[in-house]
C-alpha cells in the first residue's frame, strides 16, 4: 500500500505530463458533454457498470473493496437494477488502455495528480454536468470540504474524494514501554522523536524510528512543516533548496546517520515494524490494517501519533489517495453510476473502506456515529489523529511540464542522497533544484 503512495506520486507527475502533451491533440471537449439528466433504471434489466480500481489488485485492500462492491450489488444494485463489475488495475494503466480501445470504463479509482490530464485526454466528466445539481449537493454534505476541494478543476468537480491517507507515526507499545516511554503520550516534535528513538535503541537494542528516505510524499510534509516550499504556488519553479527545507532535511539526516533511525527501503522498514523490531514507523494510514494484524499476531499493542512538528511550528500533513472519476456514456448509465457513487461515498461506503481497508472516513461525522465508525474509532484511536490532521492537510506537489516523472525522480533521489550519503545537504538539494528548474523552463 505504501507503494501506492509512491506510485501515486509518480502518476501525479505522469499525469501532468500527459496532460500537456495531449493539449495539442485530442481533447475531451468533443466528448458529448452535458447529460445532466438521469435515465431510468429497471431491476428486470440491470445495467452493468465497470469500476476500475487499484485497491482490488492488492491483497490487503482487496477484501474490503470486494465487500464494498458485493454489498452494493446485493442491496441497492439488485433493488434498482445496477450490476457493478470490479476490474483490478494494479498500475493504473489498464483503464487508459481500455478507454483507448473503446471499452466502457465508467468509474475509475483515480489518483489526484493525473486527474487534469485524464479530464483532457480520456473524457472524464464533471459531476456537475453528469448528475442533478440538487442530488449532488445533498450527497456532498458531510464530506470534508478540504477533501472535496482536491477533486476540483476550474471550479468543477472531476473527482469525488474516495480513499484518503495521511502520514502517521505508528508506535509499537511494547517497545515503548520496555524503553520506559509512555505510548499514550507519544513524541510530538522531531527533537522528541530523536530522544525517544535513541532511548528505545539503548534500552531494547532495537531501532527506535523509521522513515524511508525514498517515501516520496511524507518528505514534502516535512519540508512544509518547517516553513519550506517544494514547488512555487504557480508551479513554475522548484523551491526545495531553500534554508527551511535544507534545515528540515538536515534534521532528518541527523536522525538517519546518528543511530536514531532504522535503515532500509520503505518496504523493508514496514516489514521491520510489523515484525515488532521497530519502535516508531512514519508511514501512511493506509497501512493501518496490516499493522494492526501484525500487532495482534505479535502480541503487542499498536499506538500512533500525528505527523511530528518542528519545535514551535505547526506540522503540515500531506495527503495521498484517490478520487472517483466518472465517464458514463448515456443517461441511463448516469443513473446507474450515480447509485454506486452514492453508496461507496455514503455512510456505509466510507465505513467499509475505513474499517476494512484503513483509509480515512471522509465523512468525518461517521467517527461519532454509533451506527458508523464510533466503535471502530474507539478501538482504533489512531484514526482520531488523522481526522484531526485532515483539517490542515495540504496536497503534494504536482510537478509541471513534460518531464514530470523525471523531475519527481530527481527530487526523491536528491532527498535520498542528501540523507544517506556524506554529501552536503544544501549542495545536493540546490543541484537537484537547478536541474529541475532547467527542465521546467
Amino acid at each position, binding site marked *: 500500500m505504501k507503494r501506492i503512495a509512491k506510485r501515486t506520486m509518480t502518476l501525479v507527475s505522469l499525469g501532468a505530463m500527459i496532460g500537456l502533451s495531449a493539449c495539442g491533440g485530442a481533447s475531451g471537449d468533443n466528448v458529448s458533454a452535458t447529460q445532466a439528466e438521469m435515465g431510468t433504471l429497471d431491476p428486470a434489466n440491470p445495467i452493468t457498470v465497470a469500476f476500475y480500481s487499484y485497491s482490488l489488485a492488492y*491483497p490487503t485492500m482487496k477484501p474490503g473493496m470486494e465487500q464494498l462492491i458485493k454489498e452494493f450489488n446485493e442491496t441497492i444494485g439488485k433493488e434498482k437494477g445496477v450490476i457493478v463489475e470490479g476490474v483490478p488495475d494494479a498500475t493504473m494503466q489498464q483503464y487508459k488502455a481500455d478507454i483507448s480501445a473503446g471499452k466502457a470504463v465508467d468509474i475509475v479509482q483515480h489518483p489526484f495528480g493525473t486527474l487534469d490530464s485524464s479530464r483532457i485526454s480520456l473524457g472524464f466528466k464533471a459531476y456537475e454536468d453528469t448528475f442533478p445539481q440538487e442530488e449532488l449537493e445533498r450527497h456532498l454534505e458531510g464530506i470534508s470540504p478540504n477533501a472535496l476541494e482536491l477533486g476540483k478543476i476550474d471550479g468543477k468537480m472531476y473527482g469525488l474524494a474516495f480513499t484518503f491517507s495521511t502520514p502517521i507515526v505508528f508506535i509499537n507499545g511494547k517497545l515503548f514501554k520496555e524503553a520506559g516511554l509512555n505510548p499514550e503520550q507519544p513524541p510530538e516534535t522531531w527533537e522528541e522523536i530523536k530522544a525517544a528513538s535513541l532511548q528505545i535503541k539503548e534500552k531494547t537494542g532495537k531501532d527506535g524510528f523509521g522513515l524511508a528516505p525514498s517515501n516520496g510524499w511524507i518528505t514534502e510534509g516535512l519540508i512544509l512543516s518547517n516553513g519550506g516550499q517544494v514547488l512555487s504556488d504557480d508551479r513554475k519553479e522548484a523551491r526545495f533548496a531553500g534554508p527551511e527545507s535544507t534545515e528540515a532535511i538536515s534534521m532528518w539526516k541527523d536522525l538517519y546517520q546518528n543511530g536514531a533511525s532504522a535503515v532500509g527501503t520503505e518496504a523493508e522498514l514496514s516489514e521491520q515494524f510489523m515484525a515488532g523490531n521497530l519502535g516508531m514507523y512514519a508511514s501512511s494510514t493506509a497501512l493501518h490494517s496490516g499493522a494492526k494484524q501484525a500487532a495482534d499476531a505479535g502480541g503487542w499493542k499498536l499506538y500512533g501519533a500525528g505527523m511530528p512538528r518542528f519545535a514551535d511550528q505547526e506540522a503540515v500533513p500531506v495527503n495521498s489517495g484517490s478520487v472517483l472519476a466518472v465517464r458514463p456514456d448515456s443517461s441511463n448509465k448516469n443513473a446507474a453510476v450515480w447509485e454506486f457513487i452514492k453508496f461507496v461515498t455514503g455512510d456505509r461506503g466510507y465505513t467499509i473502506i475505513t474499517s476494512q481497508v484503513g483509509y480515512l472516513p471522509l465523512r468525518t461525522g461517521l467517527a461519532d456515529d454509533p451506527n458508523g465508525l464510533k466503535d471502530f474509532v474507539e478501538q482504533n484511536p489512531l484514526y482520531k489523529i488523522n481526522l484531526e490532521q485532515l483539517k490542515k492537510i495540504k496536497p503534494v506537489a504536482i510537478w509541471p511540464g513534460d518531464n514530470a516523472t523525471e523531475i519527481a525522480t530527481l527530487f526523491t533521489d536528491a532527498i535520498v542522497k542528501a540523507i544517506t550519503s556524506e554529501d552536503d545537504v544544501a549542495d545536493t538539494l540546490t543541484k537537484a533544484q537547478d536541474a529541475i528548474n532547467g527542465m521546467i523552463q
Partner: protein
Amino acid sequence: MNKRSQVLSMFQHGALALMCAAAIIPLYWMVISSLKNESEIFTASLFPLQPTFGNYSYAFSQMPIVRMIFNSFGVSILMTVLQLATGLLAAYALVRWRFRGKSLIFALLSVTWLIPFQAIMIPNYVLINDMGLNETLLGIVLPFGVSTFAILSLYQAFQSFPGVLIEAACIDGLSDWGILSRLILPNIRSTVASLGIIQFINAWNEYLWPMLVTKDMNSAPIQIGLKLFVNSDTNMWGSLMAATTVSCLPILLIYLVLRRQIVDSFIRFGIK
C-alpha cells in the same frame, strides 16, 4: 606424491562442497522459512521446530497459484513448440537448398542475436495492445514464436546429418516434408529434445515481456504473479517463501527427472 594427491583431492572436494553450499543454501533457507510459523519466522533456527503448512494455505488463498502455474505451463509449452516448429522448418530450408538471399538471411538471423529486447519492446507493446492481446497468454507467446537461437542450433544439428541419406530418400520419392518429419527428425530427436528443454526453461523464466503484457494475477505466469505478491504486501515472509517455493517447484522437479539431459543441453547450446 600420494600425499600430495590426497591434499589435492581434499582441496577439490572442499572447493566443490563450498560451491554446492553456496548454490543450495539459499534454496534451503527458502524451503524452511516457508515451513516456519509466525513466531519462528524471524529466528535463525536452521529447521522449523513446529513445521506448519499455514504459509502455503495462506499463499494459495491470496493468489490464484494453480491458475498461474497453469498459465506458465501454457506459455512455456506453446512458446517452445512454436520455436521448435518454426526453427525446424527454417533450418531445413537452410540446409537443404541453395537459394537466392541465403547469405542475407544468415546475416539477418545473426543480427537478431544482438538486438536487446529493450530496442523492440515499445513497438511490440503498442502492437500487442492494439491487437487487444494484453493480459492474454497469446500476447506473451507471439513475439517469442520464433527463436533465431533455435534456428541456428538446429541448422548446426542438421548439417551433421549425412547428405547422402537425404539424396537417397529424395530419389526414393520421399517429399521434403517426409524427409524432415520421417528421416531427419527421428534421428536428431535428442538434439531437438535438448533444445526444447532449454527453450522451455527460458520461457518459464522470461521476465520483462510477460511483466509488460500481464498485470492481473489471473492472466499472469507464476513469475509475474510472484512479483506482484512480493510487491504487494509486507511481512508475510512465510507465505512469500511458500509461494516462491511453489514457483520453483515445477522447474526443480523437471530438473530432478531430466538432470543429465538438462545439463548436457546447456553445455551443448549455451545460453541466451
